[in-house]
């Protein structure tokens, strides 16, 4: 096929998807902001997104903190710098600014992005979403808004817990494996931690929560066919939300820390 025809088709498809996602996002946000709210549905999603994600996010955080401490020590011992204070500082800044929110969000994208797309996708292909409409219920308000609200509230809380566990992981390795003094390590941690480190991480978490549920809902809502369509929607939800997390992470970091 002609190269220009291929290029044209690609651009048109891209613009079509972009337009559809934008309209979906605007309508989803409008539905989440305007009352009435389905409070019990929001509470159910808070439990699903927050409470049930705690084990996997906690495990990710503790091992990340531990390995960060270990690797930093290797680096510092090679370069001959004083290790104790620097390692505590690196662990706490890396965890609160970057690794805490990004890794927690990627884990939640795998868990919640996939389950949202699969659940809403199955409802789409089995006509349950059409049934909602015929029962005078707006699917955006009933299915999508509670998930968006819950994720924006829950992800920052989840990341806060993840930050604490991650720093504790670094502390464990620092004290028990590398032989640092607990007091010195904790003092160095607190001295190098700034309010903006935590704030930026929590802001990122709220944005990531929005993106994960938005992508899960979007791909589920537009799934076609049967089981295969739902499978494709699930893959697309996880891949697109993961990519958006990494892209938006860079943008938010630049907004917060570049003057």
């Amino acid at each position: 096929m002609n190269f220009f025809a291929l290029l044209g088709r690609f651009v048109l498809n891209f613009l079509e998807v972009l337009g559809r996602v934008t309209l979906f996002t605007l309508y989803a946000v409008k539905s989440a902001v305007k009352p009435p709210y389905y409070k019990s549905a929001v509470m159910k999603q808070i439990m699903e997104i927050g409470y049930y994600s705690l084990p996997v996010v906690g495990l990710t955080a503790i091992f990340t903190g531990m390995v960060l401490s270990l690797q930093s020590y290797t680096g510092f011992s090679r370069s001959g710098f004083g290790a104790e204070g620097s390692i505590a500082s690196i662990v706490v800044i890396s965890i609160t600014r970057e690794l805490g929110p990004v890794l927690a969000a990627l884990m939640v994208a795998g868990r919640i992005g996939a389950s949202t797309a699969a659940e809403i996708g199955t409802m789409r292909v089995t006509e349950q979403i059409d049934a909602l409409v015929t029962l005078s219920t707006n699917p955006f308000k009933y299915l999508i808004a509670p998930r968006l609200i819950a994720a924006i509230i829950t992800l920052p809380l989840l990341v806060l817990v993840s930050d604490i566990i991650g720093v504790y992981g670094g502390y464990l390795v620092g004290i028990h494996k590398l032989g640092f003094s607990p007091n010195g390590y904790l003092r160095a941690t607190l001295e190098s931690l700034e309010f903006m480190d935590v704030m930026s991480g929590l802001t990122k978490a709220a944005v990531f929560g929005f993106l994960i549920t938005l992508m899960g809902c979007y791909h589920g809502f537009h799934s076609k066919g049967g089981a295969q369509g739902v499978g494709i929607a699930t893959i697309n939800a996880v891949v697109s939300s993961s990519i958006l997390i990494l892209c938006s992470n860079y943008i938010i970091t630049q907004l917060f820390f570049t003057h």
Partner: protein
Amino acid sequence: MTDAKIKVSNLHKSFGSKKVLKGLDLEVKKGDSLVVIGGSGCGKSVLLKNIIGLISPTKGSVLIDGQETVKLNENERNQLMHKFGYLFQGGALFDSLTIWENIAFGLIQAERMDKKQAKEIAINKLNSVGLGSDVGELFPDEISGGMQKRVSLARSIATEPEIIFFDEPTTGLDPIMADVINDLIVKCSEEVGATTITITHDMSSVRKIADDVAMLYEGRFIWQGKKADIDHSGSPYVEQFIHGRAEGPIEIKLQDH
């Protein structure tokens, strides 16, 4: 002013380059039961979804009680939906809710009824489709296909709608259960005094449910008439369809492999 409950004029619907409905005209009077017959994939479900507004027609007009409904906004559409009940082909029961919550869904969400009262009505409707109150506490995946159809029927009549659509209500059921569903449709529709459109390719449903029959073929109605006239319609298409003959003017395209 017409006394038609539903009036469809020159309805067209295309999906990309595929024209599914090619200028349909249809009129159903208040309290009447119309059955639309036609082969698989001829656009019967698309017709119902266009009338109720689940999909928008490419061109044409849909009047409900004399009110044009094609270009309604979200709130107006929501209000209009109170008039409708819809039994979906696959049941479309919400699998995260119990049976009684499924039946009471419209009462609680749309009519803002309190849960206790809605549950009472749901259990009554469950009984009226021949299922015991104990079924109300189960989830949809814990009951059989025939029971799911009956629950779906109970859900579609729970809010006592003025218009009910039945999308292939007997597909996938054994003949006895299909007859039970047909009887229930007649009984429940009469109880709430609803105007109904049923789409099916099951001739026993047609003979039991219909006042009027219309046959859809290649996006147009090729025959419309009273149920009593269907056996001497004079249309070779209707003849072929009601007798289930492979040979006739309706050609099924088979792919060579």
